C-alpha cells in the first residue's frame, strides 16, 4: 500500500517535471554543441511562468473554436500523460491501449488544425496543411511499430507492452527496430529536425510554430505545454523500447525501472539533440523520403514480430 503511494507520487512528480526538463535538456545540449552557453535547463519552466503573466491578444476573425481548441488540446495532452506508461512505473488504473493512444493524438491534431485555420491567416492554414500531410504519411509507421510490439507482448494494452512482464520473450532486435521506427515517427509527428526546425522563424516553411502564430499569452502557453507533454510521451515510449534491450531481471524493484526510465529518457533527449545539431533541415519535398525510413523500419519490425520475434 505504502509502495503504491510512492509509485503514484513518483509518477505525478515526473509527469510535472519531465516535460520541461526534457525540452530543456534538448535545448541545452544543442546549444553546447553549437558552442553557445545556452539557456539553463529549467528555462521551459521560466517560459511557462512568463506566458502565464502575459496578456492575451486574440484575432477579431477568431471564433469560439480558437480558445476552445487550446483548452481541449491541453486537456487531451494531460490525459495522455496520466494514462500512458510513459515512464515506469505505469498508471495503476489500467491505462489505455495503443489504438486509443493513436486516436487521442489524432484528436489533438484535429483541434490544432482547426485553431490554425480559425484566424483566417494563410500562414496558419498552410502550416495546418503541412501538418496534415506529414501526419498521414507517418501514421502507418507509428501504428505499425506499436502494433508489432503489441503482437510479441500478446496484448494491445500499453501497460502490458511496456510492462516488463514478458522479459522472457526477449527480442532485442525487434525492440531496437520498432523503437527506432517510433522515434523517427515521433520526430516527424512533433515536426522537429530534419523535417522542420523549431528554432527558425520562417512562417512559410514552419509547421508547428506557424500554426500557433496567432496564439499569445495563456493561449500560447496551453498549446506549447500540450506539445511539450506530447514530446515527452512520444520520446518516453521510444526510451522504454530501448530500455527493453537491457535484460533487466523480471522481478526487480520498481525503483530500478524508474531510474532506468529516467536515464533512458535523458539518453534519448541527448541523442535527439545531437542529431538535431548535426542534421540539416530537409526540403519540404524530401520529407517523404525521411518518413520512408520510419515506415520501412516499422514494416521490418512487423515482419519480425509476425515471425514471433526471430531475433
Amino acid at each position, binding site marked *: 500500500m505504502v509502495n503504491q503511494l510512492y509509485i503514484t507520487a513518483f509518477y505525478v512528480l515526473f509527469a510535472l517535471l519531465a516535460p520541461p526538463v526534457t525540452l530543456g535538456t534538448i535545448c541545452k545540449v544543442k546549444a553546447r554543441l553549437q558552442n553557445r552557453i545556452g539557456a539553463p535547463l529549467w528555462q521551459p519552466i521560466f517560459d511557462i511562468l512568463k506566458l502565464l503573466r502575459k496578456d492575451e491578444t486574440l484575432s477579431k476573425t477568431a471564433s469560439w473554436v480558437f480558445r476552445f481548441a487550446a*483548452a481541449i488540446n*491541453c486537456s487531451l495532452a494531460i490525459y495522455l500523460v496520466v494514462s500512458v506508461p510513459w515512464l515506469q512505473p505505469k498508471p495503476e488504473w489500467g491505462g489505455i491501449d495503443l489504438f486509443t493512444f493513436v486516436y487521442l493524438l489524432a*484528436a489533438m491534431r484535429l483541434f490544432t488544425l482547426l485553431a490554425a485555420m480559425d484566424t483566417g491567416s494563410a500562414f496558419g492554414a498552410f502550416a*495546418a496543411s503541412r501538418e496534415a500531410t506529414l501526419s498521414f504519411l507517418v501514421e502507418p509507421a507509428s501504428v505499425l511499430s506499436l502494433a508489432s510490439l503489441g503482437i510479441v507482448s500478446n496484448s494491445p494494452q500499453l501497460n502490458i507492452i511496456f510492462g516488463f512482464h514478458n522479459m522472457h520473450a526477449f527480442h532485442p532486435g525487434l525492440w531496437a527496430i520498432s523503437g527506432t521506427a517510433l522515434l523517427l515517427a515521433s520526430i516527424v509527428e512533433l515536426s522537429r529536425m530534419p523535417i522542420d526546425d523549431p528554432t527558425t522563424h520562417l512562417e512559410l516553411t514552419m509547421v508547428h510554430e506557424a500554426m500557433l502564430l496567432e496564439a499569445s499569452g495563456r493561449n500560447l502557453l496551453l498549446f506549447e505545454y500540450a506539445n511539450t507533454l506530447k514530446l515527452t510521451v512520444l520520446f518516453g515510449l521510444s526510451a522504454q523500447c530501448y530500455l527493453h534491450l537491457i535484460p533487466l531481471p523480471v522481478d526487480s524493484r520498481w525503483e530500478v525501472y524508474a531510474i532506468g526510465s529516467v536515464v533512458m529518457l535523458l539518453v534519448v533527449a541527448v541523442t535527439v539533440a545531437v542529431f538535431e545539431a548535426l542534421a540539416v533541415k530537409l526540403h519540404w519535398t524530401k520529407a517523404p523520403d525521411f518518413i520512408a525510413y520510419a515506415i520501412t523500419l516499422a514494416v521490418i519490425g512487423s515482419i519480425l514480430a509476425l515471425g514471433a520475434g526471430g531475433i
Partner: protein
Amino acid sequence: MDASSWHLPFTIGPYAVEIVTDRLSGVFLILLGTVTSCCALFSTDYLRHIKDKINLQLYWFALFLFVGAMAVVLSAGNAVFFLVAWEVMSLSSAALVIAEYRQHKAQRAGMIYLVATRIATALLCAGFLIMFSHSGSWSFSAWQFNEPSTWAAAAFILTGLCIKAGMWPFHIWLPHAHPEAPTPVSALMSGVMVKVAIYAAVRLFLNGNLNCQPLFYVLFVMATISAFWGVLFAINQRELKRLLAYSTVENVGLILLSLSLCLWAKNTNYPAISELALTALLLHCVGHGLFKSLLFLCAGSVDYSANTLELPRLGGLAKNMPVTTATFILGSAAICALPPLNGFVSKWYLYQALFASSMTMHSLVDRGLCLAVVGVLGCVGALAVACFAKATGVAFLGKGRTRPASDAKEVPILMVAAQLILGTACVGMGVASPAVVSILHPLLAPAESTAPSLALLQIVPLLPIGIGISVLTVLIMLVVLAKAPRQYKTWDCGFGSISPRAQVAADSFAQPITRIFTPVLRYNLVIDISGKDKRHFPEKIHVEPSMVSLLETKIYGPAGHWLDLLSIWLARLQAGSIHLYLMYMCISMVVLILLGTQLW
C-alpha cells in the same frame, strides 16, 4: 433467436408476404427510425428554402415510399417480397435524386444512379433465382451458402449488394447521387440506405454460413481499397456534400472490411475474432448512420443560410452559426473516430479484430495481411482527420469568402434541434458503449457457445476519457483562460488588412496530399504567369488545377460509350413494322420451345 414473424393476408403471386423481425433487423430499424425522425424535424424549415426548385407533392410521396420501403426491406422474410421492396426503395430514391429535375446535373446523377440500381437488382435476381433452384424455397432462413454450388449465387448477391452499398470500384454513383438529392434525402441515403445493403449481406451470408474463402479475400482487399480511395477523393472535393458522399465510400469500406473479416474468421473457426468484427460492423453501421446524417443535415443548414455548398464560396460561418458549427465539429470528430465518440468505438473494435487476427490466425500470410491493413487504416484515419479539418476549416472558420457566407444567420430552431439530437446520440453511443454492446450481445454470441464472450471482456474506457477530458477542458477554460483577451486583427505582415480571398482555399489545403498521389488522381496544375516583367511584376496569374478520376474516364466512360453504340445498333430492330414484330415473336417462341425441350 427472438424472431417474430407475421404472414400478411395478401400475397405477391403465389408467394406469401412474410414479415420477420429479429434483433438484427431491430438494430437497423432503430437507426432508420432515429434518422428519419431527425430528417422530419429538419425538413419543414429546410423545404421552404428549396420549394421553388422541387415539386413538393412528388417529393413527399417519394419520400414516404422510400422510408416505408426501407423498413420493409429490413423486415422482409422471403426473397420475392424483399426484391419488391428493394425495387420500390431504389426507384423512389432515384425519383428523389432527380427532385430538382430541371438541373442538368440532377438528370445526369439520376441516370448514373438508375443504371447502378438496375445492375444491382439484376445481379440480386440472378443470385436469388440460383438459390431458389438450389434450395427450393424463397425463404431467407432456408438458404445455406455452405456448398460450392451456391458460391456463384453468393458472388452475384454480394456484388449486387456492394453496388448498392457503394464499394470501390462500384462507388461512382454515390458521389453523383448523394449530393444532388435534397439534404434530408442525402442524409437518409448515406445514413441508412447503404446500410440496408449491409444488413442484407449480414442476414444472408452470416446466418447462411457462407464459406467461400476466396470471396472473403477479394472482399477484404476491395473493402480496404474502398476505405483508402474514398477518403483520398473526399479530401480533394470542393463541394461539401460531395466530400461527405466520398467519405461514405470510405466508411462503407470499413464496414465491409468488418464483414469480410467476420465471415472469414467464422469460416476458419475463430469465433472470438468473428464476434469482434461483427460488433465493429453493427456499431459502425449505426454510428455512421448517426454521424453521417448529422453532417449532411449540417451541410443542409449551410445551404439554407449561405445559399451554396461550394467550399470556395464559404467561410466564417462559425461566428454567425455557432451551434451548427459545433455540431459539425462534433460530427467531424465522430467520423474521424476520435475518442470518446461513437465512431471511435466501432473503429476500435475493428482494430481489435484485426490485431487479434494478426496475433492468432494460423497462416503467416493471413496474419501479415491483417497487420498490413492495420497500417493502412492508420493512414486512412489520419487522412480523415485532414479531410474534415479542411471541410470545417474552409467552410466554417476564418473569414467569409463571399457576401452571403458573411451574412449567414443561424438556422431555425427545429433544424438546430435535429442536429442536436443526432449529436447527442453520437456522444451517448460513445460513452455508453458498454451498454450498447451488451444490448447487441445476444446477436453476437452464437447460441451454442458457452465460452465467455470476448467482446464483453474488452471494453474501451470511454466514459473516464469523456469525463476526464471535459472536466479538464472546463477547468482550463474557467481558470487559465478566464481573462478576456484583447481583440486585434490577424497578423498581416504590415501590408494592411488581409482580403478573405487570401485565406487557404479548399484545393490548396489538400494540395500537398494530392501531389503525393499524382499518379492515382491524374493531378495536374497549370500555372500561367504573364506580363512584361513576369518575374517581379506579373500582370496576370492563372492557376488551374485539374484532376481526372481514373475509374470514370478509363473504364466507365468507354463502357458507357460502347453501350451507347450497341443500343444505337440494336435500335435498328425497332423498325416500326407490325409484320416484323410478329416475326420476332414467332422466332423467339420457336427458339424458347427448342431450348426448353433441349434443357429438360
